[in-house]
């Protein structure tokens, strides 16, 4: 079972955290292990998954898309139908229940596009907790609607002015806040990144995606799928889908990163394809960095993929070859965004559009069952897509 006792997936992961956080993350690890075995915790989590988030989400056969592409039989796992419009809330609800258990009253989180920020602000409102969201100044400009949503939900959005003023800097600032407020505050990390136990904990909360998919596909098709596809930024929706299927060796899995303007332009976010092993935000993993070890600024049209690191378990799965990682450009993602809107009447998030775009690069058997994780809905991206269409 991975991670190991020290929080490693092979040689990736770990607890590269300042000592001030150490007691806290050790305690979090202990409490999480305890909660996992606690029937009451599971019951409470399941209650909110069902009644608040609206799970299980459908596994939907995309008939017209299947016919149009002529590549296997395509199913979409509809995480876009979760409350707040993306898979992010599967994790925030789990973590806030843990925060409640630990007696914490204040919640902090980082956000890039604002989806994780909204999902965190939502559950903080649900449980009446104080909530501060760190968001890069650049992202605040790009995602003003989500900033307003968070504020409406009672959260305080704190602009981050350091570094590149985007997601990685928001994470830095959230960690600094946590260092100052260790006694009162719970940090809800939005992806499978960060120091142990976060990568494992977020994976477990997101695994509900794969667990449901397995039950649903067996009911629909009488067998397991052949191919799974999901987009990878930090990698929480993809690991959520993949994890429960890892043991079935015949199932092929593809994680799709953001190639931005192209892998050779230097303007992308493909940490696994183009990065080097390094240490970022507490974990050893693939990181986009320059020759001196400075973290690079990234680019993707999908703000949720715009991160220079990746969850350590993905680095491990890349190294073992269990999951194949590839990438898709902004343009290919935009085409897929339009394609799914037209063929199925579903407007996907630009992040999820990367996963959809990748089918075109696969050569599946006609009878292959393909499951794509539709991690979020695309309403938040309408402005971005509109602007991209004008240039």
């Amino acid at each position: 079972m991975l991670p190991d006792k020290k929080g490693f997936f092979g040689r990736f992961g770990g607890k590269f955290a300042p000592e001030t956080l150490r007691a806290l993350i050790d305690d979090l690890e202990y409490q999480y292990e305890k909660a996992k075995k606690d029937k009451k915790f599971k019951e409470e989590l399941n209650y909110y998954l069902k009644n608040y988030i609206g799970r299980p989400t459908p596994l939907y056969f995309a008939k017209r898309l299947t016919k149009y592409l002529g590549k296997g039989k395509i199913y979409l796992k509809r995480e876009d139908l979760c409350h707040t419009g993306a898979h992010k809330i599967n994790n925030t609800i789990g973590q806030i229940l843990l925060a409640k258990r630990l007696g914490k009253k204040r919640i902090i989180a980082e956000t890039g596009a604002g989806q994780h920020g909204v999902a965190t602000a939502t559950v903080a409102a649900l449980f009446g907790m104080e909530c501060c969201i760190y968001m890069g100044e650049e992202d605040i400009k790009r995602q003003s609607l989500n900033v307003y949503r968070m504020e409406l939900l009672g959260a305080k959005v704190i602009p981050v002015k350091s570094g590149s003023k985007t997601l990685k800097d928001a994470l830095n600032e959230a960690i600094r806040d946590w260092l100052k407020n260790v006694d009162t505050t719970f940090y809800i990390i939005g992806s499978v990144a960060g120091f142990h136990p976060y990568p494992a904990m977020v994976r477990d909360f997101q695994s509900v995606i794969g667990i449901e998919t397995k039950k649903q596909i067996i009911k629909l098709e009488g067998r397991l799928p052949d191919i799974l596809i999901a987009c990878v930024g930090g990698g929480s929706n993809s690991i959520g889908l993949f994890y429960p299927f890892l043991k079935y060796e015949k199932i092929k899995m593809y994680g799709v990163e953001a190639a931005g303007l192209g892998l050779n332009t230097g303007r992308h976010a493909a940490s696994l394809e183009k990065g080097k092993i390094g240490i970022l935000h507490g974990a050893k993993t693939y990181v986009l960095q320059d020759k001196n070890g400075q973290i690079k600024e990234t680019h993707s049209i999908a703000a949720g993929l715009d991160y220079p690191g990746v969850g350590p378990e993905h680095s491990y799965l890349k190294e073992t070859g269990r999951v194949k990682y590839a990438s898709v450009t902004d343009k290919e993602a935009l085409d897929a965004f339009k394609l799914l809107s037209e063929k199925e009447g579903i407007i996907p998030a630009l992040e999820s559009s990367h996963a959809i775009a990748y089918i075109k690069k696969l050569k599946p058997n006609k009878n292959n069952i393909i499951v794509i994780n539709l991690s979020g809905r695309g309403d938040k991206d309408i402005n971005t897509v509109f602007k991209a269409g004008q240039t």
Partner: protein
Amino acid sequence: MNRLYNLEKQNKKHLIIYLMAGDPDLKTTEKLIYLLDKIGVSVIELGVPFSDPIADGVTIQKAGDRALKQGINLKKVFLLMKKVRKKVNVPIVLMTYYNIIFNFGIKKFIIESKKSGIDGAIIPDLPFDEESEIYDLAVKNDFCIIYLVSPTNTISRTKKIVEKSMGFVYYILVKGVTGINNKRSSFDFRHLKILRKFSKKPIFAGFGVSMPHEVKEILRYFDGVIIGSAFVNIIEKYGNKTEKLLKECKKFVCKFLTGVKNAR
């Protein structure tokens, strides 16, 4: 033998000054090192900039940005050190984040550091129980890795950190990041007892100290005091006015030195 090991033999209290290499430029850094050595600072902590310094407050973040704009990297710091080592014998340690070292290569980092006359490294995001390779290499090459103890550490962990730390132990006085706007937490005497019981290594305290009058109280419990952001603020203030900068830095450090001497 490593210069840091002389510290525990000296029967005195110490002042440690942090500055960022290449802030505002490497020439000024060089002059500042000569100055600090001359006026009697016990250890110089030389920062190597990193794009994502999670344990640092605004002051040192900005200093790092200025240094990065100057294109400062480990190679340039080693060159600078080779030069200054011909003139000064004060112990000098690097402070940087683990990715910078890992990217450079752990073994190469320690060997180059030794060759350049660097005595040790403080790496706030590298706990003693990660990456045993760097620890073993440091021991083998007489290079000190200085580990940090936080007031939030458990007693059993504190004991282990103190055992592993080389040269001295870095005690973090605040819950938080570096910077002068932090409120110092009230000192936990259980920690001090443990620190003292398990080791004779000097214990230096830092984070959040900015005024000379604070020194006396801190040195009642610790062997030395580390000044970082407050000193970097002066560098930031005077920037490229080198003469004025050196004069003001000297004035600032001397005030602390007086406090340290009186605390003896």
